[in-house]
């Protein structure tokens, strides 16, 4: 018979302030198989843990139940205490009477106490049926993958490489650099973005431990921490990158056109193009959607022959290429090629995109002179469509009055409730750069409120006031399109309590930061989760900001939530540090709370086999009959097979049928 010890925590007044802890302890003492019940002010404190250890050492208990906060944070602590006391740590169960009782039922102390008793009884019921489990270890592949080649991904990859780990840097665009490469200058120091980023891009690309896979996307991820098998699709560039020198001759001759993504659609690029002048690697790509197949040179077709000269008629791009990197006679697979790699840990740094202006109906989205802040960034960048001159899109004239509108789609229940966090600062930066360059510009900035938390940030903002930039508190309500491509701004001045109405030449929307395209699919491939805000969910909002629920998978940068460059870089370095842990250790622990087949019970129906999301179940012949087997390193313990198995042959350790039935019985007693 089990000897269960129940330990009820006050958690200071967190629990004790609502729940009658003594009453719960007394109740627990009366439950079957409970050998003793104690209470303590803080069970997670050293002295609290010592209580458990001592009772185990004294042989008073052989199963432990702690009624306290949530197992999601504290189970490892108490399991540790059990282990130190000499008890198999899986003979431990937690009753959540804080997060799911005292904190939420403060209005009803009696109800909360009654509920706490039931929850304790449920935990005791489960504890009665717990079984000791063994942890196993597997070896680790000493390599890492970083998905996303922006400043976050580059930083993380460099850190891992410097620690000596082989690192694959996967980027979906033809060049690394990400959003930061699109920026003109960076706050609060107004460094030139390209000046500080380009050297890092080059260093990452040429680092012996980094293998950069550009124009590539993650196709599939299988496996688990220490042993991920990743399929990467290298998209078809239609240019032989081994030969391409990045001279750009093909782009010069190419007549096909498409909106330039790097310039946020403000200009056109060619079908054959190099992403941007400082691209790393500097390689050309042919965009087949924009390619017009000059001279009938569809991919894989033989060239026509000039009747006079007898020479083959080539497309301008291949003719122009001095390195012979373009050969349209080759039948190149439009799906590209699949490369398989094995890594021990993965960092996701897939960045962000900004919402398009078409989302904001009140903001005259049809006007060419309403642009997003990222578009403005290109408009003022020396590598942008105007060579760095501020010219408004409708007529390429210099604007006189500029309006900045904050919180477009952020802090808005119709779109995103979160604050996009770095818009205030970049708007101020853009305003300052423009005011410096064109002192006669009238710049009006409209904010709900100005958020400049960060080192030297508020000084940057107050400095902008000194420069003569106008700040208004109050959200812009809408824009009217006027003749001459001007816009009428309908705003409100909170301080005065009055409406504001004026004409503006160019309106810049600080639109919300969102997950990059394709991130949802990527998440599904990796089993990652989103929060309500549609960013990747970290393991813990405070204590696990770079880890995820999938062990071995880490986060850096805006894919976890909006953040500026310094924060992204910090997080990337943090992610690199934790991602290196399994690689440095060389082995990882396998959680034993996974499923197992009791072969004697298995009828071999095979129902379980296609259900497993990880392909962990196979049918093996035992005495000539098919019987299910589960690979421990692949199983993640979801229990779908356990529920489906009609022969009761599959057990999920830690969530056994008798354990759950006892919990139900306890809760309905």
């Amino acid at each position, binding site marked *: 018979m089990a000897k269960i010890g129940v330990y009820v925590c006050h958690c200071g007044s967190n629990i004790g302030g609502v729940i009658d802890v003594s009453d719960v302890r007394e109740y627990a003492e009366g439950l079957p198989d409970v050998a003793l019940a104690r209470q303590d002010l803080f069970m997670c404190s050293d002295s609290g843990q010592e209580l458990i250890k001592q009772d185990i050492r004294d042989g008073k208990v052989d199963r432990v139940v702690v009624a306290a906060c*949530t197992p999601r944070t504290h189970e490892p602590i108490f399991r540790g205490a059990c282990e130190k006391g000499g008890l198999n740590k899986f003979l431990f169960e937690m009753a959540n009477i804080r997060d*799911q009782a005292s904190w*939420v039922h403060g209005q009803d102390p009696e109800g909360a106490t009654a509920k706490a008793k039931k929850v304790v009884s449920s935990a005791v019921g489960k504890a009665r049926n717990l079984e000791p489990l063994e942890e196993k270890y597997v070896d680790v592949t000493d390599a890492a993958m970083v998905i996303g080649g922006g400043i976050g991904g580059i930083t993380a990859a460099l850190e891992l490489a410097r620690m000596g780990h082989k690192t694959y840097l996967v980027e979906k665009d033809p060049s690394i650099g990400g959003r930061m490469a699109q920026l003109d200058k960076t706050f609060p120091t107004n460094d030139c973005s390209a000046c500080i980023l380009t050297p890092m891009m080059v260093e990452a690309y040429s680092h012996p431990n980094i293998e950069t896979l550009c124009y590539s996307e993650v196709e599939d991820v299988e496996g688990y921490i220490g042993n991920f098998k990743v399929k990467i699709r290298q998209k078809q560039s239609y240019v032989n990158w081994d030969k391409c020198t990045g001279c750009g001759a093909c782009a010069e001759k190419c007549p096909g056109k498409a909106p330039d993504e790097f310039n946020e659609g403000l200009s056109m690029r060619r079908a054959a193009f190099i992403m941007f002048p400082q691209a790393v690697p500097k390689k050309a790509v042919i965009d087949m959607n924009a390619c017009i197949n000059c001279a009938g040179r569809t991919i894989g077709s033989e060239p026509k022959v000039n009747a006079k000269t007898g020479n083959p008629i080539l497309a301008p791009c291949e003719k122009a290429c001095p390195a012979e990197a373009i050969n349209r006679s080759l039948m190149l697979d439009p799906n590209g090629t699949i490369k398989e790699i094995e890594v021990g840990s993965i960092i996701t740094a897939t960045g962000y995109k900004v919402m398009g202006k078409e989302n904001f109906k009140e903001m005259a989205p049809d006007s060419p002179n309403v642009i997003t802040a990222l578009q403005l960034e290109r408009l003022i960048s020396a590598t942008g469509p105007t060579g760095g001159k501020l010219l408004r899109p409708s007529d390429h004239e210099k604007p006189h009055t500029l309006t900045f509108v904050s919180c477009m789609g952020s802090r808005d229940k119709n779109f995103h409730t979160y604050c996009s966090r770095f818009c205030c600062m970049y708007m101020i930066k853009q305003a300052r750069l423009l005011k410096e360059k064109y002192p006669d510009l009238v710049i009006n900035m409209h904010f709900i409120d100005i958020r400049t938390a960060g080192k030297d940030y508020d000084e940057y903002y107050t400095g902008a006031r000194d420069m003569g930039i106008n700040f208004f508190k109050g959200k812009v309500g809408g824009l009217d399109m006027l003749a001459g491509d001007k816009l009428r701004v309908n705003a409100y001045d909170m301080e005065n309590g009055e409406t504001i109405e004026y004409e503006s030449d160019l309106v810049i929307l600080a639109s919300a930061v969102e997950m990059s395209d394709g991130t949802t699919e990527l998440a599904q491939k990796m089993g990652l989760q*989103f*929060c309500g805000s549609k960013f990747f969910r970290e393991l813990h909002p405070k204590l696990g900001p770079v880890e995820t629920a999938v062990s071995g998978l880490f986060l850096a940068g805006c894919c976890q939530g909006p953040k500026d460059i310094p924060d992204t870089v910090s997080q990337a370095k943090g992610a690199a540090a934790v991602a290196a842990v399994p690689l440095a250790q060389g082995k990882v622990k396998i959680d034993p709370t996974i499923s197992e087949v009791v072969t004697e019970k298995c009828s071999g129906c095979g129902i379980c086999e296609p259900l497993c999301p990880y392909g962990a179940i196979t049918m093996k012949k035992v005495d000539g009959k098919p019987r299910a087997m589960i690979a421990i390193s692949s199983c993640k313990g979801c229990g779908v097979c356990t529920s489906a198995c009609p022969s009761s042959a599959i057990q*999920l350790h830690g*969530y056994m049928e008798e354990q*759950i039935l006892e919990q139900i019985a306890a809760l309905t*007693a």
Partner: protein
Amino acid sequence: MSFTPNIVGFACQWCTYAGADLAGNLRAKYPPSVKLIKVPCSGRVKPEYVLEAFARGADGVLVGGCHFGDCHYKDGNYKTKNRTDMLSQLLEDMGFDPRRFRQEWISGAEGQKFAQVITEFTEELQELGPNPLGGQE
């Protein structure tokens, strides 16, 4: 308030259980009707457990999982949905009020939603009255 219904909740540890914890962090108030049984995935919840809880007199049963596309185990919640859709129908076909059974997708970020779901479910159960099978056996 007529009575506090007894709700047995099965909550996947990644989403709904985390959502319930978050409700605590946010100090969201809801009636002490629900008691959660933590499972790794809503796909671990056998329909039999729901029936067992009702047979033992639970006034309501909640199965909480992740939103579609958010399952920690890729598609466990789809399996759950297949089963629970049929289970609701089965309850009705057996002459047991299927409103006592709820399937909800509550993410780990939806603390307020958890509180709201429990509040609404509790109110609905208060309207329905106690489980007619309660107290038997």
